[in-house]
Protein backbone atom coordinates (compact mmCIF):
# COMPACT_ATOMS: atom_id res chain seq x y z
CA UNK A 1 0.00 0.00 0.00
CA UNK A 2 1.20 3.41 -0.84
CA UNK A 3 2.11 5.65 2.04
CA UNK A 4 0.26 8.57 0.52
CA UNK A 5 -2.89 6.51 0.18
CA UNK A 6 -2.59 5.39 3.77
CA UNK A 7 -2.13 8.94 4.98
CA UNK A 8 -5.11 10.01 2.93
CA UNK A 9 -7.21 7.26 4.48
CA UNK A 10 -6.12 8.18 7.99
CA UNK A 11 -6.75 11.83 7.31
CA UNK A 12 -10.18 11.08 5.93
CA UNK A 13 -11.00 8.95 8.96
CA UNK A 14 -9.84 11.62 11.41
CA UNK A 15 -11.79 14.29 9.57
CA UNK A 16 -14.94 12.18 9.45
CA UNK A 17 -14.72 11.19 13.09
CA UNK A 18 -14.19 14.76 14.18
CA UNK A 19 -17.10 15.99 12.13
CA UNK A 20 -19.38 13.27 13.48
CA UNK A 21 -18.34 13.94 17.07
CA UNK A 22 -19.10 17.56 16.46
CA UNK A 23 -22.41 16.56 14.95
CA UNK A 24 -23.55 14.55 17.98
CA UNK A 25 -23.99 17.60 20.18
CA UNK A 26 -26.29 19.61 17.88
CA UNK A 27 -28.16 16.40 17.06
CA UNK A 28 -28.83 15.83 20.73
CA UNK A 29 -29.91 19.44 21.13
CA UNK A 30 -32.34 19.19 18.23
CA UNK A 31 -33.84 15.92 19.46
CA UNK A 32 -34.23 17.27 22.99
CA UNK A 33 -35.83 20.42 21.65
CA UNK A 34 -38.28 18.34 19.61
CA UNK A 35 -39.10 16.34 22.71
CA UNK A 36 -39.60 19.45 24.85
CA UNK A 37 -41.86 21.19 22.38
CA UNK A 38 -43.82 18.20 21.11
CA UNK A 39 -44.58 16.86 24.58
CA UNK A 40 -45.63 20.34 25.66
CA UNK A 41 -48.01 20.73 22.74
CA UNK A 42 -49.51 17.31 23.34
CA UNK A 43 -50.06 18.18 26.97
CA UNK A 44 -51.81 21.43 26.05
CA UNK A 45 -48.88 23.54 27.18
CA UNK A 46 -46.70 26.07 25.41
CA UNK A 47 -43.39 24.52 26.25
CA UNK A 48 -40.22 26.57 26.43
CA UNK A 49 -40.74 29.89 24.67
CA UNK A 50 -38.38 32.36 26.29
CA UNK A 51 -34.92 31.50 25.00
CA UNK A 52 -34.56 32.42 21.35
CA UNK A 53 -37.42 32.55 18.86
CA UNK A 54 -40.16 30.13 19.99
CA UNK A 55 -37.75 28.93 22.66
CA UNK A 56 -35.60 27.29 20.04
CA UNK A 57 -32.41 27.37 22.06
CA UNK A 58 -33.85 25.97 25.28
CA UNK A 59 -32.23 22.57 24.87
CA UNK A 60 -28.90 24.21 24.06
CA UNK A 61 -29.15 26.21 27.24
CA UNK A 62 -29.98 23.04 29.18
CA UNK A 63 -26.94 21.36 27.68
CA UNK A 64 -24.50 24.13 28.48
CA UNK A 65 -25.96 24.47 31.97
CA UNK A 66 -25.34 20.81 32.61
CA UNK A 67 -21.76 21.19 31.48
CA UNK A 68 -21.23 24.07 33.88
CA UNK A 69 -22.49 22.20 36.93
CA UNK A 70 -20.33 20.83 39.68
CA UNK A 71 -19.18 17.30 39.04
CA UNK A 72 -19.64 15.16 42.12
CA UNK A 73 -18.39 11.70 42.86
CA UNK A 74 -19.80 9.75 45.77
CA UNK A 75 -17.31 8.81 48.48
CA UNK A 76 -17.81 5.10 48.13
CA UNK A 77 -17.89 5.06 44.34
CA UNK A 78 -15.35 3.15 42.34
CA UNK A 79 -13.69 6.19 40.83
CA UNK A 80 -12.05 4.89 37.61
CA UNK A 81 -15.14 3.04 36.43
CA UNK A 82 -17.48 5.75 37.66
CA UNK A 83 -15.58 8.25 35.54
CA UNK A 84 -15.32 5.94 32.55
CA UNK A 85 -18.94 4.82 32.26
CA UNK A 86 -20.52 7.93 30.68
CA UNK A 87 -17.64 8.12 28.26
CA UNK A 88 -18.25 4.51 27.20
CA UNK A 89 -21.95 5.08 26.63
CA UNK A 90 -21.37 8.24 24.67
CA UNK A 91 -18.62 6.77 22.55
CA UNK A 92 -20.73 3.74 21.70
CA UNK A 93 -23.41 6.06 20.35
CA UNK A 94 -20.96 8.34 18.56
CA UNK A 95 -18.94 5.51 17.01
CA UNK A 96 -21.99 3.83 15.58
CA UNK A 97 -22.64 7.00 13.62
CA UNK A 98 -19.59 6.26 11.52
CA UNK A 99 -21.39 3.85 9.19
CA UNK A 100 -24.63 5.75 8.70
CA UNK A 101 -25.08 6.69 5.04
CA UNK A 102 -26.30 10.28 5.08
CA UNK A 103 -26.59 10.96 1.40
CA UNK A 104 -25.27 9.52 -1.84
CA UNK A 105 -21.54 9.23 -1.38
CA UNK A 106 -21.66 10.81 2.08
CA UNK A 107 -20.68 8.20 4.61
CA UNK A 108 -17.83 8.43 7.07
CA UNK A 109 -16.51 4.90 6.70
CA UNK A 110 -17.46 2.81 3.71
CA UNK A 111 -17.40 -0.76 4.94
CA UNK A 112 -18.72 -3.99 3.54
CA UNK A 113 -19.78 -5.19 7.00
CA UNK A 114 -21.29 -1.99 8.35
CA UNK A 115 -24.44 -3.77 9.61
CA UNK A 116 -22.37 -6.06 11.79
CA UNK A 117 -20.21 -3.17 12.92
CA UNK A 118 -23.24 -1.05 13.78
CA UNK A 119 -24.98 -3.58 15.99
CA UNK A 120 -21.73 -4.62 17.64
CA UNK A 121 -20.78 -1.08 18.56
CA UNK A 122 -24.22 -0.02 19.65
CA UNK A 123 -24.36 -3.05 21.93
CA UNK A 124 -21.29 -1.75 23.73
CA UNK A 125 -23.33 0.92 25.51
CA UNK A 126 -24.82 -1.73 27.77
CA UNK A 127 -21.37 -2.21 29.27
CA UNK A 128 -21.26 1.46 30.09
CA UNK A 129 -24.70 1.42 31.71
CA UNK A 130 -23.88 -1.68 33.75
CA UNK A 131 -20.60 -0.20 34.89
CA UNK A 132 -22.33 3.06 35.78
CA UNK A 133 -24.89 1.23 37.87
CA UNK A 134 -22.31 -0.82 39.66
CA UNK A 135 -19.75 1.90 40.26
CA UNK A 136 -22.18 4.41 41.77
CA UNK A 137 -22.52 2.52 45.06
CA UNK A 138 -26.23 3.18 45.08
CA UNK A 139 -28.96 0.59 45.15
CA UNK A 140 -31.14 2.44 42.67
CA UNK A 141 -28.20 2.67 40.28
CA UNK A 142 -27.47 -1.00 40.72
CA UNK A 143 -31.05 -1.96 39.96
CA UNK A 144 -31.04 0.35 36.96
CA UNK A 145 -27.77 -1.07 35.66
CA UNK A 146 -28.93 -4.64 36.01
CA UNK A 147 -32.25 -3.83 34.39
CA UNK A 148 -30.44 -2.24 31.48
CA UNK A 149 -28.20 -5.29 31.08
CA UNK A 150 -31.13 -7.68 31.07
CA UNK A 151 -33.21 -5.52 28.78
CA UNK A 152 -30.61 -4.62 26.20
CA UNK A 153 -29.07 -8.05 25.95
CA UNK A 154 -32.52 -9.59 25.49
CA UNK A 155 -33.63 -7.16 22.83
CA UNK A 156 -30.36 -7.27 20.96
CA UNK A 157 -31.35 -10.69 19.65
CA UNK A 158 -34.72 -9.93 18.02
CA UNK A 159 -33.31 -6.60 16.86
CA UNK A 160 -30.49 -8.25 14.97
CA UNK A 161 -32.55 -11.21 13.77
CA UNK A 162 -35.18 -8.95 12.29
CA UNK A 163 -32.54 -7.37 10.10
CA UNK A 164 -31.17 -10.70 8.82
CA UNK A 165 -34.16 -11.16 6.52
CA UNK A 166 -33.26 -7.94 4.79
CA UNK A 167 -29.64 -9.00 4.64
CA UNK A 168 -30.66 -12.23 2.90
CA UNK A 169 -32.78 -10.32 0.43
CA UNK A 170 -30.15 -7.78 -0.43
CA UNK A 171 -27.28 -10.15 -0.13
CA UNK A 172 -25.19 -7.48 1.50
CA UNK A 173 -24.02 -6.37 4.91
CA UNK A 174 -23.38 -2.82 3.87
CA UNK A 175 -25.90 -0.09 4.46
CA UNK A 176 -24.93 1.69 1.26
CA UNK A 177 -25.53 -1.38 -0.83
CA UNK A 178 -28.84 -2.01 0.91
CA UNK A 179 -29.99 1.45 -0.07
CA UNK A 180 -28.82 0.80 -3.57
CA UNK A 181 -30.87 -2.42 -3.58
CA UNK A 182 -33.91 -0.53 -2.32
CA UNK A 183 -33.48 2.03 -5.10
CA UNK A 184 -33.97 -0.71 -7.64
CA UNK A 185 -36.46 -2.99 -5.86
CA UNK A 186 -38.50 -0.67 -3.68
CA UNK A 187 -38.26 0.13 0.00
CA UNK A 188 -37.47 -2.50 2.57
CA UNK A 189 -40.81 -2.05 4.30
CA UNK A 190 -42.53 -3.47 1.22
CA UNK A 191 -40.41 -6.60 1.30
CA UNK A 192 -40.09 -7.00 5.05
CA UNK A 193 -43.28 -5.48 6.41
CA UNK A 194 -43.41 -8.22 9.02
CA UNK A 195 -39.93 -7.47 10.31
CA UNK A 196 -40.58 -3.77 10.67
CA UNK A 197 -42.72 -3.90 13.87
CA UNK A 198 -40.26 -6.32 15.43
CA UNK A 199 -37.40 -4.02 14.63
CA UNK A 200 -39.31 -0.96 15.81
CA UNK A 201 -40.28 -2.45 19.18
CA UNK A 202 -36.86 -3.93 19.76
CA UNK A 203 -35.18 -0.69 18.80
CA UNK A 204 -37.36 1.25 21.22
CA UNK A 205 -36.37 -1.13 23.97
CA UNK A 206 -32.74 -1.08 22.94
CA UNK A 207 -32.49 2.68 23.43
CA UNK A 208 -34.55 2.63 26.63
CA UNK A 209 -37.38 4.79 25.41
CA UNK A 210 -40.91 4.76 26.78
CA UNK A 211 -42.70 2.37 27.16
CA UNK A 212 -39.53 0.41 27.83
CA UNK A 213 -37.69 2.93 30.01
CA UNK A 214 -37.35 0.70 33.05
CA UNK A 215 -33.68 1.58 33.16
CA UNK A 216 -34.30 5.09 34.38
CA UNK A 217 -37.85 4.69 35.62
CA UNK A 218 -38.44 7.92 37.49
CA UNK A 219 -41.22 6.65 39.65
CA UNK A 220 -39.53 3.41 40.70
CA UNK A 221 -35.77 3.68 40.81
CA UNK A 222 -35.15 7.38 41.06
CA UNK A 223 -33.05 7.99 37.97
CA UNK A 224 -31.73 4.49 37.47
CA UNK A 225 -28.07 4.17 36.57
CA UNK A 226 -27.71 7.95 36.41
CA UNK A 227 -28.88 8.59 39.98
CA UNK A 228 -25.45 9.56 41.28
CA UNK A 229 -24.23 11.36 38.19
CA UNK A 230 -24.16 15.11 37.98
CA UNK A 231 -22.77 17.80 35.78
CA UNK A 232 -20.89 16.86 32.66
CA UNK A 233 -20.99 13.13 33.23
CA UNK A 234 -24.75 13.20 33.49
CA UNK A 235 -24.70 15.35 30.38
CA UNK A 236 -22.91 12.56 28.53
CA UNK A 237 -25.64 10.08 29.50
CA UNK A 238 -28.26 12.63 28.56
CA UNK A 239 -26.73 13.30 25.16
CA UNK A 240 -26.04 9.64 24.48
CA UNK A 241 -29.66 8.75 25.09
CA UNK A 242 -30.94 11.24 22.56
CA UNK A 243 -28.17 10.59 20.06
CA UNK A 244 -29.06 6.91 20.29
CA UNK A 245 -32.67 7.80 19.55
CA UNK A 246 -31.55 9.67 16.47
CA UNK A 247 -29.26 6.85 15.35
CA UNK A 248 -31.93 4.22 15.77
CA UNK A 249 -34.35 6.28 13.71
CA UNK A 250 -31.66 6.76 11.09
CA UNK A 251 -30.95 3.03 10.86
CA UNK A 252 -34.66 2.27 10.78
CA UNK A 253 -35.02 4.66 7.88
CA UNK A 254 -31.97 3.20 6.17
CA UNK A 255 -33.20 -0.37 6.45
CA UNK A 256 -36.89 -0.02 5.82
CA UNK A 257 -37.55 3.37 4.27
CA UNK A 258 -34.86 3.67 1.69
CA UNK A 259 -32.43 5.92 3.53
CA UNK A 260 -31.85 9.03 1.45
CA UNK A 261 -34.05 7.85 -1.41
CA UNK A 262 -36.97 9.94 -2.53
CA UNK A 263 -39.83 7.92 -4.04
CA UNK A 264 -40.31 8.33 -7.82
CA UNK A 265 -37.46 10.83 -7.99
CA UNK A 266 -34.04 9.95 -9.25
CA UNK A 267 -31.46 11.96 -7.35
CA UNK A 268 -29.17 13.91 -9.66
CA UNK A 269 -25.42 13.59 -9.35
CA UNK A 270 -23.29 16.23 -7.74
CA UNK A 271 -23.94 18.58 -4.86
CA UNK A 272 -27.64 18.96 -5.58
CA UNK A 273 -28.23 15.24 -5.23
CA UNK A 274 -26.32 15.18 -1.96
CA UNK A 275 -28.38 18.02 -0.53
CA UNK A 276 -31.65 16.46 -1.63
CA UNK A 277 -30.60 13.11 -0.23
CA UNK A 278 -29.61 14.69 3.09
CA UNK A 279 -32.94 16.50 3.30
CA UNK A 280 -34.90 13.35 2.55
CA UNK A 281 -32.89 11.38 5.09
CA UNK A 282 -33.33 13.93 7.88
CA UNK A 283 -37.04 14.38 7.27
CA UNK A 284 -37.65 10.65 7.51
CA UNK A 285 -35.39 10.28 10.54
CA UNK A 286 -36.97 13.10 12.47
CA UNK A 287 -40.39 11.72 11.71
CA UNK A 288 -39.47 8.60 13.65
CA UNK A 289 -37.96 10.73 16.40
CA UNK A 290 -41.35 12.40 16.56
CA UNK A 291 -43.06 9.01 16.78
CA UNK A 292 -40.85 8.06 19.71
CA UNK A 293 -41.72 11.29 21.49
CA UNK A 294 -45.39 10.70 20.75
CA UNK A 295 -45.14 7.28 22.37
CA UNK A 296 -43.47 8.78 25.39
CA UNK A 297 -46.37 11.17 25.86
CA UNK A 298 -49.03 8.53 25.50
CA UNK A 299 -47.93 5.25 26.97
CA UNK A 300 -47.25 4.13 30.50
CA UNK A 301 -44.28 1.95 31.23
CA UNK A 302 -44.44 -1.84 30.95
CA UNK A 303 -43.21 -3.98 33.79
CA UNK A 304 -39.89 -5.75 33.86
CA UNK A 305 -41.28 -9.28 33.60
CA UNK A 306 -43.71 -8.26 30.84
CA UNK A 307 -40.79 -6.74 29.01
CA UNK A 308 -38.68 -9.86 29.21
CA UNK A 309 -41.49 -12.22 28.33
CA UNK A 310 -42.30 -10.09 25.34
CA UNK A 311 -38.72 -10.32 24.09
CA UNK A 312 -38.33 -14.07 24.54
CA UNK A 313 -41.87 -15.33 23.94
CA UNK A 314 -43.02 -13.10 21.11
CA UNK A 315 -40.39 -11.07 19.37
CA UNK A 316 -37.71 -13.74 19.16
CA UNK A 317 -39.98 -16.48 17.70
CA UNK A 318 -41.50 -14.00 15.30
CA UNK A 319 -38.10 -12.83 14.16
CA UNK A 320 -37.00 -16.42 13.65
CA UNK A 321 -40.12 -17.25 11.66
CA UNK A 322 -39.54 -14.18 9.56
CA UNK A 323 -35.96 -15.26 8.97
CA UNK A 324 -36.93 -18.77 7.86
CA UNK A 325 -39.78 -17.63 5.65
CA UNK A 326 -37.58 -15.05 3.95
CA UNK A 327 -34.81 -17.57 3.41
CA UNK A 328 -37.28 -20.10 2.02
CA UNK A 329 -38.76 -17.59 -0.40
CA UNK A 330 -35.35 -16.50 -1.56
CA UNK A 331 -34.39 -20.14 -2.13
CA UNK A 332 -37.64 -21.17 -3.82
CA UNK A 333 -37.94 -18.25 -6.21
CA UNK A 334 -34.20 -18.07 -6.61
CA UNK A 335 -34.11 -14.32 -6.07
CA UNK A 336 -30.80 -12.80 -7.05
CA UNK A 337 -29.62 -9.76 -5.19
CA UNK A 338 -28.89 -6.86 -7.47
CA UNK A 339 -25.74 -5.38 -6.15
CA UNK A 340 -24.84 -8.72 -4.59
CA UNK A 341 -21.63 -9.33 -2.79
Amino acid at each position, binding site marked *: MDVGELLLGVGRFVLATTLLLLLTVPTAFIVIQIELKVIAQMQ*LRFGPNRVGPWGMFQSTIHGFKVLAKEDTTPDQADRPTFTMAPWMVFMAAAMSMLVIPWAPGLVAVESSISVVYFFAVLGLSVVGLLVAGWASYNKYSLLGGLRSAAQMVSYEIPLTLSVVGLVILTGSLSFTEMIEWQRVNGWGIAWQWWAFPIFFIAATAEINRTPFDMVEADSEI*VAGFATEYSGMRFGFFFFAEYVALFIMSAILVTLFFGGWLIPFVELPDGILGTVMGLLSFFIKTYFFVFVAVWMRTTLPRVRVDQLMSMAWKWLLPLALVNLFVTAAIVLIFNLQPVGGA
Partner: protein
Amino acid sequence: MALTPQPPKTDTSAGSGDLLHGNPAPIVIPDGAGDDELLREFGMEEHPRGGFHGLLEVIPTKADYILDLIRANSLWPLLSGLSCCAIEMMSTATSKNDIDRFGMFPFRASPRQADVLIVAGTLTTKMAGPLVRLWEQMPEPKWCVAMGTCTTSGGRFKRSYSVVQGVDRVMPVDVYVPGCPPRPEGLIYGMLKLHELVKQRRGQWSTYVDRGPQRVAWEGDVR
Protein backbone atom coordinates in the same frame (compact mmCIF):
# COMPACT_ATOMS: atom_id res chain seq x y z
CA MET B 1 -1.12 43.68 82.25
CA ALA B 2 -2.83 46.42 80.39
CA LEU B 3 -6.39 47.00 81.47
CA THR B 4 -7.33 48.70 78.23
CA PRO B 5 -6.98 46.74 75.02
CA GLN B 6 -3.84 47.70 73.24
CA PRO B 7 -3.68 47.78 69.47
CA PRO B 8 -1.43 44.98 68.30
CA LYS B 9 1.99 45.98 67.12
CA THR B 10 1.99 45.66 63.39
CA ASP B 11 4.94 44.75 61.32
CA THR B 12 4.58 45.61 57.69
CA SER B 13 7.50 43.62 56.42
CA ALA B 14 6.37 40.71 54.31
CA GLY B 15 6.27 37.31 55.88
CA SER B 16 6.56 38.42 59.45
CA GLY B 17 2.89 38.02 60.26
CA ASP B 18 1.94 35.67 63.01
CA LEU B 19 -0.28 33.50 60.89
CA LEU B 20 -0.59 30.80 63.47
CA HIS B 21 -2.10 33.12 66.04
CA GLY B 22 -4.48 34.85 63.78
CA ASN B 23 -2.50 38.01 63.11
CA PRO B 24 -1.68 37.90 59.42
CA ALA B 25 0.50 40.65 58.17
CA PRO B 26 -1.38 43.27 56.19
CA ILE B 27 -0.52 43.16 52.55
CA VAL B 28 0.99 46.45 51.50
CA ILE B 29 1.25 47.23 47.82
CA PRO B 30 3.93 49.80 47.17
CA ASP B 31 3.04 52.67 44.91
CA GLY B 32 3.95 52.63 41.28
CA ALA B 33 4.93 49.01 41.17
CA GLY B 34 3.19 46.00 39.67
CA ASP B 35 1.36 45.65 36.43
CA ASP B 36 -0.27 49.06 36.26
CA GLU B 37 1.88 50.15 33.34
CA LEU B 38 1.05 46.98 31.53
CA LEU B 39 -2.65 47.48 32.10
CA ARG B 40 -2.43 51.06 30.84
CA GLU B 41 -0.74 49.81 27.73
CA PHE B 42 -3.79 47.68 27.06
CA GLY B 43 -6.03 50.67 27.25
CA MET B 44 -7.30 50.25 30.81
CA GLU B 45 -8.04 53.40 32.74
CA GLU B 46 -7.65 54.01 36.41
CA HIS B 47 -10.80 54.57 38.32
CA PRO B 48 -10.80 57.43 40.82
CA ARG B 49 -11.86 55.03 43.59
CA GLY B 50 -9.23 52.46 42.80
CA GLY B 51 -8.87 49.67 40.34
CA PHE B 52 -8.85 49.64 36.60
CA HIS B 53 -11.58 49.37 34.10
CA GLY B 54 -11.61 49.10 30.37
CA LEU B 55 -11.36 46.71 27.52
CA LEU B 56 -9.83 43.72 29.25
CA GLU B 57 -12.60 43.66 31.77
CA VAL B 58 -14.87 42.31 29.09
CA ILE B 59 -13.36 38.87 29.06
CA PRO B 60 -14.15 37.67 32.60
CA THR B 61 -17.26 39.75 33.15
CA LYS B 62 -19.00 38.91 29.91
CA ALA B 63 -18.19 35.23 30.21
CA ASP B 64 -19.66 35.26 33.68
CA TYR B 65 -22.67 37.15 32.43
CA ILE B 66 -23.34 34.60 29.70
CA LEU B 67 -22.87 31.74 32.12
CA ASP B 68 -25.31 33.36 34.52
CA LEU B 69 -27.81 33.86 31.72
CA ILE B 70 -27.52 30.19 30.86
CA ARG B 71 -27.96 29.14 34.46
CA ALA B 72 -30.91 31.42 34.99
CA ASN B 73 -32.74 30.07 31.98
CA SER B 74 -32.22 26.44 32.83
CA LEU B 75 -33.17 25.92 36.46
CA TRP B 76 -34.15 22.33 37.08
CA PRO B 77 -36.12 21.96 40.29
CA LEU B 78 -35.83 18.91 42.47
CA LEU B 79 -38.95 16.77 42.38
CA SER B 80 -39.54 17.02 46.09
CA GLY B 81 -42.68 18.18 47.77
CA LEU B 82 -43.25 18.11 51.48
CA SER B 83 -46.95 18.78 51.80
CA CYS B 84 -49.78 20.97 50.58
CA CYS B 85 -47.60 23.39 48.64
CA ALA B 86 -46.33 20.45 46.60
CA ILE B 87 -49.70 20.22 44.90
CA GLU B 88 -49.56 23.88 43.93
CA MET B 89 -45.97 23.38 42.84
CA MET B 90 -47.12 20.59 40.54
CA SER B 91 -49.95 22.79 39.37
CA THR B 92 -47.32 25.40 38.48
CA ALA B 93 -45.64 22.87 36.25
CA THR B 94 -48.79 21.72 34.50
CA SER B 95 -50.80 23.02 31.60
CA LYS B 96 -52.55 26.03 33.12
CA ASN B 97 -49.46 27.69 34.56
CA ASP B 98 -46.73 26.25 32.45
CA ILE B 99 -43.42 26.94 34.18
CA ASP B 100 -41.70 25.04 31.38
CA ARG B 101 -41.88 28.29 29.45
CA PHE B 102 -38.94 29.50 31.54
CA GLY B 103 -36.98 26.30 31.11
CA MET B 104 -37.79 24.83 34.48
CA PHE B 105 -39.70 21.78 33.53
CA PRO B 106 -37.55 18.71 33.86
CA PHE B 107 -38.31 18.11 37.52
CA ARG B 108 -35.35 15.90 38.34
CA ALA B 109 -35.95 13.05 40.74
CA SER B 110 -32.32 12.82 41.73
CA PRO B 111 -30.78 15.70 43.70
CA ARG B 112 -27.55 15.21 41.79
CA GLN B 113 -29.08 16.77 38.71
CA ALA B 114 -31.18 19.50 40.27
CA ASP B 115 -30.35 23.19 40.42
CA VAL B 116 -33.02 24.60 42.67
CA LEU B 117 -34.68 23.10 45.70
CA ILE B 118 -38.24 24.31 46.08
CA VAL B 119 -39.08 23.55 49.67
CA ALA B 120 -42.81 23.15 49.26
CA GLY B 121 -44.60 22.50 52.49
CA THR B 122 -44.19 22.28 56.23
CA LEU B 123 -40.76 21.16 57.36
CA THR B 124 -40.90 18.93 60.40
CA THR B 125 -38.05 18.06 62.72
CA LYS B 126 -38.08 14.51 61.47
CA MET B 127 -37.82 15.66 57.87
CA ALA B 128 -35.21 18.35 58.53
CA GLY B 129 -32.30 15.93 58.46
CA PRO B 130 -33.25 14.25 55.19
CA LEU B 131 -33.96 17.63 53.60
CA VAL B 132 -30.55 19.02 54.60
CA ARG B 133 -29.07 15.85 53.23
CA LEU B 134 -30.85 16.41 49.94
CA TRP B 135 -29.59 19.97 49.86
CA GLU B 136 -26.05 18.82 50.48
CA GLN B 137 -26.34 16.22 47.74
CA MET B 138 -27.18 18.86 45.16
CA PRO B 139 -24.12 20.01 43.22
CA GLU B 140 -23.13 23.66 43.03
CA PRO B 141 -24.39 26.05 41.83
CA LYS B 142 -27.69 25.60 43.60
CA TRP B 143 -30.47 27.76 44.92
CA CYS B 144 -33.26 27.31 47.39
CA VAL B 145 -36.79 28.67 47.24
CA ALA B 146 -38.93 28.57 50.36
CA MET B 147 -42.50 28.19 49.20
CA GLY B 148 -45.34 29.00 51.54
CA THR B 149 -45.55 30.43 55.01
CA CYS B 150 -44.77 27.13 56.68
CA THR B 151 -41.33 27.08 55.13
CA THR B 152 -40.66 30.74 55.72
CA SER B 153 -41.67 30.87 59.34
CA GLY B 154 -43.60 27.83 60.43
CA GLY B 155 -46.84 29.45 59.41
CA ARG B 156 -49.95 28.18 61.03
CA PHE B 157 -47.97 25.37 62.68
CA LYS B 158 -45.46 27.69 64.29
CA ARG B 159 -46.43 26.63 67.78
CA SER B 160 -46.21 22.94 67.08
CA TYR B 161 -43.78 20.67 68.86
CA SER B 162 -42.58 19.02 65.69
CA VAL B 163 -42.34 21.80 63.14
CA VAL B 164 -39.19 23.70 62.16
CA GLN B 165 -39.97 27.39 62.35
CA GLY B 166 -38.75 28.32 58.93
CA VAL B 167 -36.53 26.39 56.61
CA ASP B 168 -33.85 29.08 56.90
CA ARG B 169 -33.01 27.58 60.26
CA VAL B 170 -31.52 24.60 58.52
CA MET B 171 -30.36 25.81 55.12
CA PRO B 172 -29.74 29.03 53.21
CA VAL B 173 -32.71 30.39 51.31
CA ASP B 174 -32.69 32.68 48.28
CA VAL B 175 -36.33 33.50 47.66
CA TYR B 176 -39.27 33.39 50.04
CA VAL B 177 -42.69 33.00 48.45
CA PRO B 178 -45.48 33.89 50.86
CA GLY B 179 -48.93 32.36 50.80
CA CYS B 180 -50.61 29.37 52.29
CA PRO B 181 -50.13 27.91 49.78
CA PRO B 182 -49.00 30.49 47.21
CA ARG B 183 -50.91 30.55 43.99
CA PRO B 184 -48.99 29.16 41.01
CA GLU B 185 -48.61 32.71 39.76
CA GLY B 186 -46.91 33.49 43.05
CA LEU B 187 -44.43 30.70 42.62
CA ILE B 188 -43.73 31.78 39.05
CA TYR B 189 -43.10 35.31 40.29
CA GLY B 190 -40.74 33.91 42.90
CA MET B 191 -38.88 31.92 40.30
CA LEU B 192 -38.53 35.00 38.12
CA LYS B 193 -37.11 36.81 41.13
CA LEU B 194 -34.69 33.93 41.40
CA HIS B 195 -33.73 34.57 37.78
CA GLU B 196 -32.77 38.11 38.77
CA LEU B 197 -30.75 36.83 41.71
CA VAL B 198 -28.93 34.37 39.50
CA LYS B 199 -28.18 36.97 36.86
CA GLN B 200 -26.92 39.49 39.40
CA ARG B 201 -25.04 36.89 41.42
CA ARG B 202 -26.91 37.85 44.53
CA GLY B 203 -27.96 34.35 45.50
CA GLN B 204 -26.53 32.57 48.49
CA TRP B 205 -24.45 30.45 46.16
CA SER B 206 -22.15 33.23 44.96
CA THR B 207 -21.52 34.49 48.45
CA TYR B 208 -21.30 31.06 49.98
CA VAL B 209 -17.52 30.90 49.81
CA ASP B 210 -17.06 34.30 51.42
CA ARG B 211 -19.10 33.45 54.46
CA GLY B 212 -17.17 30.32 55.18
CA PRO B 213 -18.73 27.11 56.37
CA GLN B 214 -22.32 27.55 57.42
CA ARG B 215 -23.49 26.35 60.73
CA VAL B 216 -26.22 23.86 60.08
CA ALA B 217 -28.51 24.33 63.00
CA TRP B 218 -30.91 21.50 62.60
CA GLU B 219 -29.34 19.09 65.01
CA GLY B 220 -31.26 19.44 68.21
CA ASP B 221 -31.54 23.19 67.93
CA VAL B 222 -34.67 23.50 65.93
CA ARG B 223 -38.02 22.80 67.28
